[in-house]
């Protein structure tokens, strides 16, 4: 094993290795029959071109490299989608519905859920860290159950199970409650780790200054914990954005439901699924930007 790593230190060997991997991947694709050259040769040429391209781009400054590679990867994706021979009129006809109704419900459900889940997570984390046995037990039981069971089951328990006890909730509240409880459980752990990551000395110093325990939590620990909490929370929000499609099990016309059913009507499911994929991707991209700004804001204390 160690030998492999020593070998890999030589740039030429690394290149040969990369070429073999690329060639091995590219040889699997179908190439048009009417080309004069055979499949393996085409694969070798493309592999060579990719490597030449990488080599040339690396002469650019860092930011330019990133932009060029992003653009190239995106183009590859577009070519892949284009190969499906999609019907664009079908997509354009249904785009307003996907955007206004679909995104509307998806964002409504996800945004409400992430806010409630954050509240639950804060309370859950504090209970988890408290010395009270009941609080600790409730918090750990809750986290264990909601992390350990499938979200779809939780949706059904709330939507179909609660009516057995006389509580009949509409589809959207049921979905929001299920998502909040489920993600609240994951985020309880995130909040706990964030709070625990703040050095104990901070609490002790605050105690020495005579601050009350709630003041310590609110003014000393939490502001520092948030910096650590934000990246994994952003991660969770993006995951939730897509998991919110589970509320379609209750007939809510969110993005994924519309994509699935509209596509079904004329057997054009690829059209709708790819469109939905791009929309989800775009929303998460916007959220990544927002997360970056939040991280900058709460990371101010770390800069000197």
């Amino acid at each position, binding site marked *: 094993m160690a030998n492999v790593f020593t070998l890999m230190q030589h740039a030429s060997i690394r290149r040969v290795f990369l070429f073999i991997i690329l060639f091995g991947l590219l040889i699997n694709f179908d190439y048009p029959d009417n080309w004069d050259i055979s499949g393996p040769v085409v694969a070798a040429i493309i592999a060579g071109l990719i490597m030449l391209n990488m080599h040339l781009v690396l002469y650019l400054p860092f930011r330019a490299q990133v932009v060029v590679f992003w653009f190239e990867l995106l183009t590859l994706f577009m070519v892949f989608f284009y190969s499906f021979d999609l019907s664009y009129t079908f997509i354009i006809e249904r785009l307003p519905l996907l955007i206004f109704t679909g995104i509307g419900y998806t964002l409504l459900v996800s945004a409400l859920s992430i806010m409630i889940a954050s509240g639950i997570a804060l309370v859950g984390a504090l209970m988890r860290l408290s010395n009270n046995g009941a609080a600790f037990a409730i918090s750990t039981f809750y986290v264990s159950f909601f992390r350990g069971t499938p979200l779809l089951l939780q949706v059904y328990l709330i*939507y*179909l199970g609660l*009516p057995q*006890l006389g509580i009949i909730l509409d589809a959207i509240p049921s979905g929001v409650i299920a998502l909040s409880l489920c993600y609240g459980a994951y985020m309880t752990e995130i909040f706990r780790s964030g709070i625990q990551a703040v050095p104990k000395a901070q609490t002790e110093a605050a105690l020495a200054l005579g601050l009350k325990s709630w003041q310590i939590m609110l003014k000393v620990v939490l502001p520092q914990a948030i910096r650590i909490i934000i990246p994994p929370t952003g991660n969770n929000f993006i995951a939730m954005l897509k998991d919110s499609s589970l509320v379609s099990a209750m*007939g809510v016309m969110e993005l994924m439901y519309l994509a699935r059913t509209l596509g079904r009507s004329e*057997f*054009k499911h690829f059209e709708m699924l790819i469109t939905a994929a791009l929309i989800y991707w775009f929303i998460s991209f916007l959220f990544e930007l927002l997360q970056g700004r939040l991280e900058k804001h709460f990371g101010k204390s770390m800069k000197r």
Partner: protein
Amino acid sequence: MMNWTKCALGLTAMIAFTSFAQAGEVLDKVMADKTMIVATNSEYPPASYLNSEGKFDGFDVDVAKELAKRLGVQATFINPAWEAITSGKWGGRWQMAIGSMTPTPARAQVLDFPAVYYFTPAAFYVHQKASYESLKDLNGKKIGASAGSTYESYLNKTLKLDEAYSPPFDYLVEPGEIRTYETDTNAMDDLRLGDGVRLDAGISSVPNIHEAIKNNYPLRILGEPVFFEPLAVVVAKGDKEFSQKTGAIVEEMRADGTLKALSIKWFGADLVSTKAK
């Protein structure tokens, strides 16, 4: 201790009261609201689907609208997950389900089937270029169907159709391997890649296969339909009056030719009187 017993009793009582609607209760609610909420399954064109405006459309939807009209109310539609409908735990969220559901003894334990309103012929389909000539050629082949469907049951030879409604049938194919999918369309997508690439044949409803062929799927139907699946209007258990009234209206629609006309409009064929034998 006493308190716990009381609590448990109370809960049991609540469950007992909420899971069964009282006689006439659903009908009264529908008449009072002037609307009937109908659950459908909009993933199966042309029976039921979402049109380009995002409105429910199709044979099932037209039947529901006509049924509501004859009740003197308006129909609105909802599309919950299929399991939410078949679970029978409707919680009063919708009053009727018209989504091409087959009555089975298991479903009849939690749901009522006031009337069968049409029959779907089920048939095997193969790739257009495949050389199969009869159903016998499919013995030992890889055959696809949607999981949990009557088609899968047919392949497994465990299909139980209520004899009260359905014509008798035989198991004509001995599959080598059964592949199950989320929906029939996924199986068609696999077969579309070429004969035998992932799949050799599939089984689905004839209207669904025709719809796929119309949308350029390279498929063809092999042989005659293998069974006729009765499809019923569904209501929750408990309200006999509502159930009877619904059944009477469906019979009326059958007698005056409305159902047949709708079937020809959507399927291009009369699937209502297919009561073969």
